[in-house]
C-alpha cells in the first residue's frame, strides 16, 4: 500500500513540548465570543437576542443553506451583545457575546438518538448538522455537506490523523485518549454510508497514538490502521488520499468523485459524542505551544474563549511574543490582538519569540527549482511568480495557479525568501474577480 506522496517537505515537527501532555480541561471563561461564521460556507444568522438567557448547547445561530452548520452556546448565561468582533481570520465578523453564569445549565437534545444503530446517510447528516459538526482539522467544512455528497458514491473512509503541521498535537492526544470514541465515530460514518473499507491514517512520528490505535483496532473489525510517512503536507486532503489509496483527486473534483471520504480524527470523535450522548459541538482541543509560551499544553476549551485566556492557562509568556499564530505555523493566521476567540477549526495557538522566525528580506529568485521539487500539486511556483510579477494573471491561470492549496511548502523552502503563497493568494483573488466580472458581462 502506498504511504507516500510526491513533493512536500521534511520539516522539524517540534511537537515534543506537548505530545505527551494529556488533554487538560480549562476553566470556563467569564465570557465567550461566538462568531456566526466558524465553518467554510454561508454564515449563520443569530436566533437569540441581547439580554436573552441561553443554556449550554442551545442553538444560537443557524442558516438554511446546505453549506452551513448551526452554532451552539458553549456556556449558559446571558447574551450581552451581538456585534462585529475581531475574528481569527483578521476580519470583524458578527459575533454573539455571552456572559457565563457558571451554572452550565444544559439544553435538552432536540434529536432522538435511539435509532443510531440503523442510521442512514441522510439521518446521520441531519444529526451531525444539528450538532454543528464541521471539519475540526482546520478545513471547517460542514460534515453534513460531506456526508450527503459522499452518500452512495464512496468505498473508502479515511480518518485523517496525520496532523502534519509542526507544533500541533491536539489530534494526537485525541487519538491517544479517545481511541474508542474514534473507532465508534468511524463505524457510525462507515455504516451510514455503507463503506466496507475504513482506514485511520496516522503519521509515523506519533508512536504513542499508533500503539494505542493498534491496541484498540486489533480487538475490533471494520477499521484498519495505516501509518503514513512523516512529511508535510501529509494531512492535506489530496495528499492523504494519495498516500492511503494511491488515487489522485483531480482539479475541481471532490473526494467523493474518486470514491473517498476523509474525516479528521477529532471530527470522528465529535460524531460519536453527538450520536451517543446528543452533545452538540461546544468544546474542542487546542494545542498551545511555541517558544514564548511558559508551559505549553493541550487544552479542552469552550468554543468562543478569548485566546488570551488560553495563554494565561499555560502560565503566560516567557517573554513578549513576536508573533501569535492561530492554527499551524504553515497555514495558520497571525493575530494582532489576543481578544479573538477560539473557533471550531482552531487546532492550535502558537506564540513565537523572534528566534523562531527565520524570515529575512526577500532577495532575487535564483531559479534553483526547489519550489518545483516540493510542490505537492506539481506546480512550478517560480514561473507562476514570474508571470504574477509581470502582471500576466491569465498566464498564471495557464500554469494552474488555481490548483494551489496554499500549503506553504514553496515559501518555506525558497532560499530567496520570496512570499510565493501570498502572491498566489492574490492571483487567485484577482482571477475570481475576473470570472465574476465576465459572468456579469454575460448577464447583460
Amino acid at each position: 500500500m502506498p504511504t507516500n506522496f510526491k513533493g512536500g517537505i521534511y520539516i522539524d515537527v517540534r511537537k515534543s513540548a506537548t505530545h505527551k501532555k494529556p488533554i487538560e480541561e480549562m476553566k470556563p471563561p467569564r465570557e465567550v465570543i461566538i462568531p456566526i461564521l466558524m465553518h467554510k460556507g454561508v454564515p449563520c444568522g443569530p436566533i437569540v437576542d441581547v439580554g436573552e438567557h441561553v443554556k449550554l448547547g442551545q442553538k444560537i445561530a443557524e442558516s438554511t443553506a446546505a453549506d452551513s452548520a448551526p452554532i451552539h452556546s458553549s456556556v449558559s448565561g446571558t447574551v450581552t451583545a451581538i456585534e462585529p468582533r475581531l475574528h481569527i481570520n483578521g476580519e470583524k465578523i458578527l459575533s454573539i457575546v455571552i456572559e457565563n453564569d457558571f451554572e452550565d445549565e444544559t439544553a435538552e437534545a432536540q434529536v432522538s438518538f435511539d435509532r443510531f444503530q440503523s442510521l442512514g446517510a441522510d439521518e446521520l447528516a441531519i444529526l451531525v448538522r444539528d450538532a454543528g459538526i464541521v471539519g475540526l482539522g482546520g478545513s471547517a467544512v460542514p460534515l453534513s455537506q460531506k456526508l450527503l455528497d459522499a452518500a452512495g458514491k464512496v468505498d473508502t473512509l479515511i480518518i485523517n490523523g496525520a496532523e502534519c503541521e509542526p507544533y500541533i498535537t491536539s489530534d494526537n492526544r485525541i487519538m491517544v485518549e479517545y481511541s474508542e470514541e474514534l473507532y465508534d465515530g468511524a463505524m457510525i460514518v462507515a455504516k451510514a454510508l455503507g463503506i466496507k473499507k475504513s482506514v485511520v491514517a496516522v503519521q509515523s512520528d506519533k508512536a504513542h497514538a499508533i500503539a494505542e490505535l493498534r491496541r484498540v483496532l486489533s480487538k475490533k473489525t471494520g477499521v484498519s490502521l495505516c501509518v503514513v510517512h512523516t512529511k508535510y503536507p501529509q494531512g492535506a486532503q489530496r495528499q492523504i488520499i494519495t498516500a492511503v489509496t494511491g488515487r489522485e483527486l483531480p482539479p475541481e473534483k471532490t473526494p467523493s468523485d474518486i470514491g473517498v471520504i476523509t474525516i479528521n480524527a477529532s471530527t470522528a470523535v465529535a460524531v460519536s459524542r453527538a450520536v451517543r450522548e446528543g452533545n452538540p459541538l461546544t468544546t474542542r482541543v487546542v494545542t498551545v505551544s511555541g517558544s514564548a509560551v511558559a508551559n505549553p499544553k493541550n487544552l479542552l476549551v469552550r468554543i468562543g474563549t478569548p485566546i488570551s485566556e488560553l495563554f494565561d492557562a499555560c502560565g503566560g509568556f516567557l517573554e513578549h511574543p513576536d508573533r501569535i499564530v492561530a492554527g499551524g505555523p504553515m497555514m495558520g493566521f497571525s493575530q494582532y490582538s489576543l481578544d479573538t476567540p477560539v473557533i471550531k477549526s482552531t487546532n492550535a495557538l502558537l506564540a513565537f519569540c523572534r528566534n523562531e522566525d527565520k524570515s529575512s528580506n526577500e532577495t532575487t529568485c535564483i531559479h534553483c527549482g526547489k519550489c518545483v521539487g516540493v510542490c505537492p500539486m506539481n506546480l512550478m511556483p517560480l514561473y507562476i511568480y514570474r508571470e504574477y510579477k509581470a502582471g500576466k494573471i491569465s498566464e498564471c491561470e495557464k500554469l494552474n495557479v488555481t490548483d494551489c492549496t496554499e500549503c506553504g511548502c514553496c515559501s518555506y523552502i525558497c532560499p530567496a525568501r520570496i512570499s510565493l503563497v501570498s502572491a498566489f493568494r492574490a492571483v487567485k483573488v484577482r482571477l475570481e474577480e475576473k470570472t465574476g466580472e465576465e459572468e456579469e458581462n454575460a448577464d447583460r
Partner: protein
Amino acid sequence: MQIDNRRLLMSFSPHIKTDEDTRSIMTDVIIALLFPLIMAVYFFGWRAAFLTAVSVAACVGFERLYCFVSKKESTISDMSAVVTGMLLAMSLPVSVPVWTVVVGAFFAIVVVKMLYGGLGKNFLNPALAARAFLFSWPALVSVWIKPNLGSSAIRIFGSVSRSALSPDVIASVTPLGKMKQGFLPSVAMGDADVISSLRDVVVGNVAGCIGEVSAVVIIAAAIYLLIRRVITVHIPAAYIGTVAILTFLFPLGGNSPLLWMVYSVCSGGLIFGAVFMATDYTTSPVTPKGRILYGVGCGVLTVFIRYFGAYNEGVMFAILIMNCISCFLDRIVRPRRFGTQKKSRKAVGEDEASEN
C-alpha cells in the same frame, strides 16, 4: 505579562522558513569547490590558489563597483560572485597571466551577469561565458603545465609566458589532445603501463585546467553537494552517463571501448563541468525531466564537439549551448497536473468521458 498589540508582527503563512538561504547555498558550493582547489594546489603549486584568489577578488570587486555605479544596493553578500570567481579561475590553466583572469572576471560579472539584471537573470553561466571569451586568445589559455613538478617549477606571481617557462615544465599535450587524434593517452604519452596511466587520469595527475584535473575529488565534492541538497543528481548523472554510453559505443581509433570510455569521462573538464557548471541554477531547467534532457543534451554535444569540432574540449561549448535552450526545456517539460494523466489541463474524468 501585558501584551502590547503593536509589538505583534503580522505575517502571511507560512510563518516558519527553512534555515537555508541563497548565501548558505553559495557557501556550500564554495566549500565543495575547495576540494578540487586543494588538489590543484597539490599538483600545480600555489599559483593555482593565487589565481583563484585574484579571480574571486576581481569578481566581488566588479560586482560591488557595478552596484555602486548603477546606484543599486550591493548584492555581494549573497556570495554568488565568489562562486563565479572560483569557477572562472578553476576552469583556466594554471599558466594563464594574471591579467587574463581579471579581464575574464570583468566579462563574467559585468557583461554576462549584471547587465542582464544580476543573479538569477543571466541566461549564460557567467564563468563559462568568460572562459569562452578568454579563448579568443588561444595562445594564452592553452599552455599546459605538467603536474606534480613541485612548487618551485612555476612562479606564484608574475608572468608565466611560454618563453618564461622551461620546456620541461610545459606539457606537450593534454590527454584529450591525444584522444582527439584517436590515441589513448597512455599510448600517446609513451606510457606503456595502462594501469598507472589510468590512475593518473582518475586522480588528476595530468595536464589540464586548475579545477578539472582530479575526477575522484570532484566526485567527492559532488557527493557533498548532493547531501546538502544543493544540487540534484539528474544533471550530472544524465550528462556523465550520456558521455559514457556514447564513448563506449563509438570509441575512436579502434581502441578498447571500456578504456576509451574511462579516459573520455575522466579527461578534460567533463566531471568538473557536469558537477559545477551544468548544475548552475540560473542556467539549467527546474524539473527533474527537464534536467535529465538538459544533461543528455550536454553529453551528446560534448562528444560531438570532441569528435568532430575544432576544439579538443567539448564541455564548455556544450554547456553554453544548452544554457541557451534551458528556458525552452522548462517551457516544454512541465510536470503533470495533479490528478490528471496528461500534461493537458483536462482532468482524468474528462479524459475518460471524451474517449467514451
